[in-house]
């Protein structure tokens, strides 16, 4: 990358960030990707069903003494073993609904429903 091109990219990045900072009110939760937390507690995903938007982030946190997993039925994600206190994040990059289970305790089930469009689209 030449200096000039590097500078142009940098300038564009700075101005985009600046513009976003100038135009987005601090509490513009509506247009920011949201982080949704799902607690794993006493062998359940809480909440078991969650509505998210494209671009949002889902975070599972295991609060049980025993290890669990968050594993998509269609294989889209797999946290593998989450011991107590461990967490796992997925960015929503799909449309529609996805079911997931704990691979160790398959009666533990959850569903993510993607609704709406990504922020800024």
């Amino acid at each position: 990358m030449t200096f000039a091109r590097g500078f142009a990219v940098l300038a564009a990045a700075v101005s985009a960030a600046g513009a976003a900072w100038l135009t987005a009110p601090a509490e513009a939760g509506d247009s920011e990707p949201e982080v949704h937390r799902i607690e794993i507690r006493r062998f359940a995903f809480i909440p078991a069903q969650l509505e998210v938007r494209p671009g949002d982030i889902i975070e599972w946190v295991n609060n049980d003494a025993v290890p669990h997993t968050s594993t998509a039925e269609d294989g889209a994600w797999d946290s593998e073993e989450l011991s107590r206190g461990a967490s796992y994040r997925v960015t929503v990059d799909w449309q529609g609904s996805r079911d997931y289970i704990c691979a160790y305790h398959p009666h533990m089930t959850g569903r993510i429903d993607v609704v709406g469009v990504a922020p800024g689209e």
Partner: protein
Amino acid sequence: MRRHTLFAAALMSAALVFMPPSGQAQSPEDLNDLEIAHVAYSAGALDIRYAHLALAISENPKIREFAALMLRDHGAVNDAAVALITRLNVTPKDNEVSQSLVAQAAGIRSRLRAAEGAEFDRIYAENELSYHQFVNGALAGIFIPNAQNAELKALLEDALATFKAHEHHAEAMVEAVSMAGE
């Protein structure tokens, strides 16, 4: 049918364990917190021993998967118990209820070691179901209500949630093993 008869027999023998032969023996209702902690830890440790036996003997994938789950979950619950007693700086106290659990488990392990193939799988699955039912009954009916220390009570409630999941899993395993054997 045979399965249910065996299962009833297992439950009865489990109940007999806790039935004191003389008026002086300890019953589960008599135990204090340190004794309850000892029983809970022993129950987990005994199930871990069954699981090691299953992994050594069984070739049935369902049995092996269940045994791996027992190692992982009972190991984690007992680690949590050790962390709690370390933090409280106490020592669980051996007692007659723990001792009868240990003695009964030794008998079941020798039955398991003498069996192989589908017979091993059936005995293991049925024992896991009745064992978890029995331990869960004692936790829910006696130990959780009687525990005085709030942290011990919370640990036992976590343990109960875990063992209930195992009980449901064991039901499915008994079903699968008995269908395979018919």
